[in-house]
């Protein structure tokens, strides 16, 4: 019973409380923090590095290992998730950059401003889409976004603020807002053929 109460307390404790407990030697505190954010980070990396699960696993592991080493430096000025995403972002950039150096993709395929791969526009779904297909269509359209726009959209889905996105992407808040606007317009254009069915999206 006592153990259940403790676990419940861990689940509900603020991030900073868990971090301080872990830095004082409490392993269960880190486990709770990890459990809280691992799936979001994994989903984010899966969409940032699509169709390459081995690389997703590598970057995921490196992100957490770097975060663990730097936890003593974490300050409660920003969301822990945003801090974690910033580490993941930098590692993903390194991953894309090293992929270009290894010749897995041509350097001309990498955006010189963001060091992330330029994506080629694929066929966009068109026509009437039912509810079942809409999620897949959205997923496809998100993958086709240029990486910096994709990242803004995904981070917003995770509730990261535009101020924090701007810090992660080393740009101004206006730029991150503009990227989100642009991403949304591209998604709307990709899905311009869909409409609500009778079951509807409501």
């Amino acid at each position, binding site marked *: 019973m006592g153990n259940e109460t403790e676990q419940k307390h861990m689940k509900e404790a603020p991030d900073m409380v868990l971090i301080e407990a872990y830095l004082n030697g409490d392993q269960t505190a880190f486990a709770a923090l990890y459990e809280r954010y691992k799936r979001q980070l994994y989903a984010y990396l899966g969409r940032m590095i699509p169709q390459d699960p081995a690389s997703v696993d590598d970057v*995921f*592991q490196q992100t957490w290992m770097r975060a663990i*080493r730097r936890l003593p430096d974490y300050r409660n000025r920003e969301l822990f998730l945003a801090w974690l995403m910033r580490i993941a972002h930098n590692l993903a950039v390194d991953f894309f950059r090293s992929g270009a150096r290894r010749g897995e993709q041509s350097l001309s395929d990498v955006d010189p401003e963001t060091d992330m791969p330029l994506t080629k526009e694929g066929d966009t779904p068109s026509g009437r889409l039912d509810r079942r297909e809409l*999620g897949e269509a*959205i997923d496809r359209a998100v993958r086709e976004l240029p990486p910096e726009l994709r990242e803004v*959209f995904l981070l917003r889905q995770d509730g990261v603020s535009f101020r924090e996105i701007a810090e992660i992407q080393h740009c101004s808040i206006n730029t991150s807002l503009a990227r989100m606007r642009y991403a949304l317009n591209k998604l709307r254009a990709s899905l311009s053929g869909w409409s609500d069915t009778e079951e509807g999206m409501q």
Partner: protein
Amino acid sequence: MNCKEASDMILKGERSDILEQHLGQCPECRSLNEDLRRISAAADTPLPEVPEKLDRAILACAAEQSARRSMGPTLLFRMPVLRAVAAVAVLAACAVLTFSVMTNGGSAAVPRPLAVAEMAHGSEEDVLDFLTNSAELDADLLALSVELDQTESDLQLMASVSAPSWYSAAAYGDF
């Protein structure tokens, strides 16, 4: 309120009476608001499961880092055997360095600049990590050398107390 202000609020997920009034009057912003809601809802897919092998590796790393942080140099100083081993290791390292300097005419390879240059191909965080770790190693070596001095003094004292009078540190000189 103009459309730019309205779209900023919509993207940020903010709400106000003024925005609601604008949405009532502007079909474009209303459409943007509705599309954002639908796209976000459709993109909100169930979160994937993380492979267990990753869970195990990361939790093990956390445990190891925690143990390393709690160990630090103080544990080393409390254990006489470890102090003696550390003293020997420092002596050996000094001997190697001295030999290297003598045979290379003073140009003993100091790996740090080369390593940093190599690391320059890595990310800025990698370089900072390396320099931080190097600084920490320097601090540890300094602490060990202080401890070595103390160990040497302790051993000289022990020798003078336990040995016959002719068996003195003065006869044998420094270690």
